[in-house]
């Protein structure tokens, strides 16, 4: 493939949300960058912190309330994608867990690792994983609350300094 544009050599990916479906795009982009030989930094902030907290990273959920695109998951239940997924059904206890379980099963089939294993893989691939200082303060977290793959805690300024020359991607 010919490409006259300068190839991307560095990316900084921000993950600011903590739903299972909201964390994966950041993980896939970071890992995919390393697979292409692109330097990658992965920065978790705000509710995205859930993905790097020991207490929560294994239990991220798919939001089934107020998620108007959830009917995309219908084919996983062998139902047509045109069937709507009403928010009221999403609010029934257990539905979010069931949706999460289904999505995880589907991902395992596609060889997409669970969040913890994925973060380990991304870290081993040489990407830097960082957490946001302000989010740490806001959610009353200490370094000990975070998984060991988190390399450090950064202020916004430090994040920008680390992102010098990188394309910044907000997910």
């Amino acid at each position, binding site marked *: *493939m010919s490409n006259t544009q300068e190839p991307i050599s560095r990316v900084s990916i921000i993950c600011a949300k903590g739903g299972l479906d909201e964390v994966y795009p950041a993980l896939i982009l970071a*890992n995919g960058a*390393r697979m292409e030989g692109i330097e990658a930094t992965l920065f978790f902030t705000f509710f995205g912190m859930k993905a790097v907290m020991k207490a929560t990273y294994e239990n991220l959920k798919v939001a089934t309330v107020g998620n108007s695109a959830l009917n995309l998951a219908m084919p996983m239940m062998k139902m047509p994608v045109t069937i709507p997924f009403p928010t009221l059904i999403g609010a029934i206890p257990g539905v979010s867990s069931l949706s999460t379980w289904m999505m995880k099963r589907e991902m395992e089939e*596609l060889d997409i690792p669970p969040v913890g294993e994925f973060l380990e893989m991304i870290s*081993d691939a*040489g990407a830097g994983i960082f957490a946001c200082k302000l989010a740490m303060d806001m959610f009353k977290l200490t370094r000990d609350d975070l998984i060991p793959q988190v390399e450090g805690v950064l202020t916004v300024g430090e994040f920008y300094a680390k992102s010098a020359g990188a394309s910044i991607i907000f997910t």
Partner: protein
Amino acid sequence: MPEKIIAGKTVNVDDEGYLVDYKEWTEEMALEIARAEGIEELTDRHLLVINFMRAEFEANGTGPSIRRLNKKSGVPTKELYQLFPGGPAKKAARIAGITKPQGCV
């Protein structure tokens, strides 16, 4: 389809230089392709990965994902990136003479 002479043998390659028919591959070619990719020597660990990729390709028609590579070949992710700097799955696929891996993970 472009042709290329690798290790004295004329083979068909695609636009990005991946071998079109993995059966045309020889171990001598692997070393020549590796050197063009900046890997001077192929160690036993390189060969372990390369042979695993070829076996996977033969069985599934496509190269493995990094995760599969790591789990089934037993070579840790860190080492994969050290062995094939700048993109293990693609570099190893190129050296192993199989087509470009299509997966996203």
